[in-house]
């Protein structure tokens, strides 16, 4: 689960990580009401769950309150990578002497939380990681002990020279780690962490993601969820035991199992089509799940044909086929469908499906080719 920058800043503040003052506003009127009348340099930032908002024009500086109102008006309603901006953060801008990067992530290789830091913070951090990886300091953290102060200092000393600055930075790192583990985070970044001319170390921008599998024990984090249009669809699917990710193509696919679902998308692409989605219906033959899955699939107007790809394992194909027949009976659609069934009891399953009159094939390749043909009609 993702949260907005302003929410990450609130969590930072709660844990004692210093952040400049700021207010979140949904309308121009709110900016007029909630931002103090004092004229000072502020930054107006779009609150969206996609990267690259700065380059898209979603971050603007304002010298006066009137300017802040004007800039907010420009950003609210703006389209950033298909997402409509519904909120802006109006925050005090600070003078920056130097920018740094710090981040925490669950590291697959070390099977631990890894702390990363760099003296080259800012928007080009990914480029830094690619071109000069030695400029990214990494430290793996022992889950039983946590991030000890001496470890935080060891990192801070590589970023700062002045003892007071080192102390401020080390403090922030320890607090960020505590926040990370307390909230079952999967990503926590401060980029940039800045040093001001008056030698204050501050978090200017924050990003946090959370482990969906841990939300059951993170009620406060869950209550912060502000999903956009596409995310809502994915959440709705999750609630029904389905895993759905919308893509840009026109061939809808419904598959049992995540790996097979990806392989199905690959197959469609390999034979010249474009998958409209990733959709994993899991291991059951429950007809309701198929109906739910079909409804989610077909709510995407781009879908011109549907490929259902089922490999029967413990769930037998004849059971799946019976589920499909019931489900397809309830779904009224003109979108052409091709079904592929294979695995345990495939023959019996195929016999049952035949009564629907829908094209049924035995291999993934045929199914992909048929779905592509059907999408062109």
């Amino acid at each position, binding site marked *: 689960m993702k949260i907005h920058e302003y929410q990450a800043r609130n969590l930072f503040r709660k844990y004692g990580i210093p952040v400049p003052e700021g207010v979140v506003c949904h309308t121009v009127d709110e900016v007029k009401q909630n931002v103090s009348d004092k004229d000072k340099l502020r930054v107006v930032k779009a609150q969206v769950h996609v990267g690259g908002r700065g380059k898209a024009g979603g971050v603007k500086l304002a010298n006066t309150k009137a300017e802040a109102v004007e800039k907010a008006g420009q950003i609210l309603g703006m389209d950033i990578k298909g997402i409509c901006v519904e909120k802006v953060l109006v925050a005090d801008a600070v003078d920056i002497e130097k920018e740094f990067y710090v*981040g925490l992530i669950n590291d697959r290789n070390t099977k631990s939380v890894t702390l990363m830091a760099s003296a080259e913070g800012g928007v080009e951090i990914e480029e830094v990681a690619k071109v000069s990886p030695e400029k990214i300091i990494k430290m793996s953290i022992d889950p039983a002990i946590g991030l000890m102060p001496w470890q935080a200092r060891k990192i801070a000393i590589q970023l700062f020279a002045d003892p007071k600055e080192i102390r401020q930075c080390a403090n922030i790192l320890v607090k960020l780690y505590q926040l990370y583990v307390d909230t079952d985070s999967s990503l926590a970044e401060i980029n940039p962490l800045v040093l001001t001319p008056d030698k204050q170390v501050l978090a200017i921008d924050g990003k946090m*993601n959370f482990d969906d599998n841990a939300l059951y024990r993170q009620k406060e984090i869950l209550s912060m969820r502000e999903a956009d249009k596409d995310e809502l669809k994915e959440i709705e699917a999750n609630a029904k035991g389905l895993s759905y990710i919308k893509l840009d193509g026109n061939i809808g696919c419904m598959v049992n199992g995540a790996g097979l679902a990806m392989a199905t998308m690959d197959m469609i692409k390999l034979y010249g089509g474009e998958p409209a989605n990733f959709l994993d219906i899991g291991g059951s033959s429950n007809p309701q799940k198929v109906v739910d899955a079909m409804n989610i699939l077909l709510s995407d107007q781009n879908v011109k044909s549907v490929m259902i790809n089922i490999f029967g394992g*413990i769930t037998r194909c004849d059971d799946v086929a019976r589920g499909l027949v019931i489900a397809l009976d309830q779904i009224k659609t003109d979108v052409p469908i091709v079904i592929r069934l294979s695995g345990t009891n495939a023959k019996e399953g195929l016999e049952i499906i035949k009564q629907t009159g829908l094209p049924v094939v035995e291999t993934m390749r045929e199914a992909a080719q048929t779905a592509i043909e059907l999408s062109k009609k």
Partner: protein
Amino acid sequence: MSILINKYTKVIVQGITGRDGAFHTSKMKAYGTNVVGGTSPGKAGQEVEGVPVFNSVEDAVKATGANASVIFVPAAFAADAIMEASYAGIELVVCITEHVPVQDMIKVTPVLKKHGTKLIGANCPGLITPDECLIGILPAMIFKKGNVGLISRSGTLTYEVVNMLTESGLGQTTCVGIGGDAVSGLYFIDLLEMYENDPATEAVVLIGEIGGDAEEQAARFIKEKMTKPVVAFIAGQSAPPGKRMGHAGAIISSGSGTAEEKIKAFKAADVPVAKEPREIPGLVKEKLGL
């Protein structure tokens, strides 16, 4: 021969009284797996599918000499179950449970290391040595004894590939579904080393997915350490970029993670990568000179 499990493996089922635990206990027993017990706190003395139930893994190990366990408990209790098995001296723990929080798996890792426990999963279908032992939820009927080892991060995609191997006359030594979670037990390289040392395995099929760099590491391992041929497939070649975890994700896996990068790594290690699953049996036969 085989890796990890054989007809002598003694298995207990953690969460045996649950719906899934009981159902798959019956399936495993029907296949011939030596299921010697199960656990469910407070239910000692009961029987499930003719198997005795114990209060704890420790009790079960003392009474039965079990050396492997399979976990079917809900996600919130999975890490606890893994650690319990590890402390009780179980050598191989297979965690079928999905949706286990990552921080829990991070806490499990040092415990496994301390006791030398091998973990498969979480969120995996389990493993099978055909005609000898099945641990997990794999559909037994598609497997056949033979000389090909298989490791996969997927479930149904694995079945799809195994089915194709079996239909084309290629049986298997041991097939292992290691699970697709970010932090899990044994990785590709751990298993590749076991297959390399197993006299019965003559070729290995590796089914990877996008994300992380386990495949890149596997490619490096194959190039440097393996004498046996490996054939690979990567799922998710069409997945769009951008579905990733912000800067930190990109940084940690800088130079790896995408299908393209994985395929490149395998090609550099002389590992053929199938464009679609159906090509896999042919590539294996080619490597075996069949």
